[in-house]
């Protein structure tokens, strides 16, 4: 068994010192509090004593003083004066005749002087005659001085008692508690875990540990066993958690990939949806040239049968048919460019002008079929940006589709598509003569699946996808609230074109 040697005050534990300090502080506070209560009581008693002395003097001396004053017994007045002056609590005495002469002096005008004045009456011929007054003064500061001395004495005695009591308590605490606590602490400190089991120290705690400390030792041993059991359970749980974690990571990766695919499909679907909305006009756009081509072919056939056929006319009709085919080819090329899937990674240095021309081409016929004036202002100088062209075209197509829906039933409808470069940014703006977007829903128009179109006419994904595409290209899409008309603006960062092309021709 390990022995914990008893250490006295100098090497007392912090807890013991704290206990001793607490005793000293608490006892001092109580002592000071009680002392001040006692001093206050003493002060009241001393004040009462002074007043009682005044009353007793009044009772005892009224008669003889009044008699001496009445009989003008100056010797007796002097004796009374000196007698009163010799009283321990009386510091000032003044005896005044009604006729004026005074023995003694007035007490000083001070708050520290308690003054008591007795009017003196002498019974003469059945009448109480005023013969003078007796003024007494007691110096209250003497009470303060006495209380001060008493305070010092009490504080000294209480301080000594507190100090001795603290030392005694320190001794008792060290003897009865702290040395056992140290044993318990050493016992706990030497417990160790081996092979998933908590092993106790090789020694045991002294048997003279009793009471609550014995409970602590027992609790410590119980805790040791519980920790062992808990440790084993923890090991098992950790193993299960590792297995579960591995499978969970795999599942999460799988879900993420699925989600990405879904996102791409949604975007592509939305683009195809926009193109689908244009499908009628595209068909019409292609159908018209085809009719023209068919007309030329018919003319050519007729001319082949005619005797007025000239090679120049054939050449002219052929050239026109060929131009018309070229026109169809351009439309289809633009359609293909807009509908193709951009590479997931990497951006192309691409002229926004081209994208907008393609988009405008697709829409032109549709707008014209509804009598909508379509103004396209695209500069001939290419403005390039790093982008996925199909996605940028999708933004423009979405905005133009929305504009179409907004103005198609309006009188004198018009839609404008402009491209500009401002402060290093390509600014694509789609304006229309529609009724505008109510302020109440402006905040919601970018939300996915939010649409003001009738059921079946819109997916509600157009603006949200367009917004996401603009953000992915380090640009932004916003509603120009300063414009008098509905005007959506797409800003994209401009980069130097790799192969500048002038389409002015």
């Amino acid at each position, binding site marked *: 068994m390990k022995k914990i040697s008893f250490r006295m005050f100098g090497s007392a534990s912090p807890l013991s010192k704290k206990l001793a300090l607490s005793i000293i502080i608490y006892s001092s506070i109580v002592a000071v509090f009680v002392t001040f209560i006692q001093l206050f009581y003493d002060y009241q008693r001393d004040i009462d004593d002074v007043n009682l002395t005044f009353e007793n003097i009044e009772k005892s001396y009224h008669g003889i003083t009044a008699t001496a004053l009445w009989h*003008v017994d*100056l010797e007796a007045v002097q004796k009374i004066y000196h007698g009163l002056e010799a009283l321990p609590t009386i510091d000032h005495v003044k005896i005044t005749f009604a*006729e004026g002469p005074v023995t003694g002096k007035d007490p000083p005008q001070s708050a520290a002087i308690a003054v008591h004045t007795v009017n003196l009456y002498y019974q003469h011929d059945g009448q109480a005659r005023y013969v003078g007054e007796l003024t007494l003064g007691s110096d209250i500061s003497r009470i303060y001085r006495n209380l001060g001395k008493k305070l010092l004495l009490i504080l000294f005695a209480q301080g000594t008692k507190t100090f001795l009591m603290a030392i005694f308590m320190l001794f008792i605490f060290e003897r009865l508690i702290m040395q056992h606590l140290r044993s318990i602490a050493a016992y706990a400190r030497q417990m160790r875990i081996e092979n998933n089991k908590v092993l106790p120290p090789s020694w045991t705690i002294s048997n003279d540990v009793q009471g609550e400390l014995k409970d602590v030792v027992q609790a410590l041993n119980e805790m040791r066993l519980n920790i062992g059991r808990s440790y084993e359970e923890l090991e098992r749980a950790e193993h299960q958690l590792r297995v579960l974690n591995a499978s969970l990571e795999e599942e999460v990766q799988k879900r993420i990939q699925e989600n990405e695919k879904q996102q791409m499909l949604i975007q592509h679907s939305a683009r195809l949806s926009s193109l689908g909305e244009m499908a009628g006009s595209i068909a019409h756009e292609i159908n018209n040239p085809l009719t023209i081509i068919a007309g030329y072919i018919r003319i050519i056939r007729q001319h082949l049968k005619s005797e007025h056929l000239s090679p120049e006319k054939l050449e002219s009709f052929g050239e026109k048919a060929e131009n018309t085919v070229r026109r169809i080819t351009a439309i289809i090329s633009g359609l293909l460019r807009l509908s193709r899937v951009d590479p997931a990674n990497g951006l192309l240095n691409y002229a926004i002008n081209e994208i907008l021309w393609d988009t405008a081409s697709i829409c032109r016929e549709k707008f014209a079929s509804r009598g909508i004036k379509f103004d396209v202002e695209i500069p001939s100088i290419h403005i390039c940006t790093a982008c996925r062209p199909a996605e940028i075209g999708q933004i423009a197509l979405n905005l133009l589709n929305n504009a179409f829906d907004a103005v198609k039933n309006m009188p004198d409808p018009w839609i404008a598509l402009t491209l500009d470069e401002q402060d290093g940014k390509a600014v694509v703006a789609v304006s229309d003569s529609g009724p505008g977007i109510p302020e109440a829903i402006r905040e919601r128009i970018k939300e996915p699946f939010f649409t003001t179109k009738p059921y079946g006419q819109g997916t509600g994904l157009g603006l949200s996808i367009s917004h996401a595409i603009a953000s992915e290209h380090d640009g932004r899409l916003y509603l120009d609230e300063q414009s008098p008309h509905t005007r959506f603006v797409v800003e994209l960062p401009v980069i130097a074109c790799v192969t500048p092309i002038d389409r002015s021709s």
Partner: protein
Amino acid sequence: MKQYFSLLLIFVLMGWSPHVFGANAKPLGSPDKPIRVALLIDKMDMFWTHFVRIMNVAANQLKMDVQVYHGHESHLAMIQKAEQLALSPDRPDVLMFKSFKGNGPQIMQMAARHQVKTFAVNASLELKPGEAAAWPHLIGELLPDDVQAGYELVKALRAEMRNKNIAHVHLIAINGDQADSPARLRAIGLRRAVSEFKDITLHQVIADAWTAPTAPEQFELLKKRYPMINAVWAGNDAIALRVVEKAKTMDYVLGQNLFIGGIDSSPEGLAAIKKREMVTSVGGHILDGARSLIVLYDYFKLGQFKEKLWMTPMVPVTLANVDAYRRIIDPQSSTPVDFTQYSKWLHPKASYDFNFLKD
């Protein structure tokens, strides 16, 4: 008038009739040794100074030895001194004493224990009738008629004020030590006179010590309390003279709007009368020391008297008779009174017809 006053003075100074002597003819004293008398009084003030001075004149004439002791106004000190004298190997033949604050019986008891004769002067022992027989060592008492003194003082003041056409006497009285029997007896005479004369209002009687230490302040204060006062009755000349001094500093014209009288007929009092500062001083007992020695001289020659009490009549000395009286008690007198001629032992045919003016 002068003749009349002389006869009155003799009566006052002797105050007894010849039959009081000679009851017992057995001589008591030694013919070779002088009779030794110790006078024990309370204090040595103005009155007692003259009392002793005149007494010494008589002692020289009668070849008697007189030693004077006083108790510094302490009756206990007097008793202590009486015991010392009685225990002394050279103790006196007679202890003449003044009973002060009622210490007479204790002094007599002390002296009797050591076979010393006693004789009381000036203050009454206040013995009950027949009680004197219980004190065999007591030769007798020679006392002034203090009641009469108090009464005569009021009368003299009133008479003087009536002469000045002052209709009403507003009187205050400043008496001597109330513990002393003469003061009490004089106050009795005062009140008797006040009750007798309706034109006198006694506003208040107060007391001072016989030496009048506070009389001026007392008078000043009573003047404020009773602004109408015009007469002061003083228990002795010392008090009266101190009031005079104080009154002179105030808005009084003595003898015109303030009248002061005392008791003792001391030389100082007579001088004040002469200066019209005092109206009167009632007295006669200032010669009681000399008179007592004649009685004691005859006692030691002739034996115990039948009577043990002799009263000295008290008469007022006013401006009218002050010169005659001053000649008798004047300390500078070149022709002092021959007290031996009044001794029955030396002059068996003496009629005790004391007439000092004749000397």
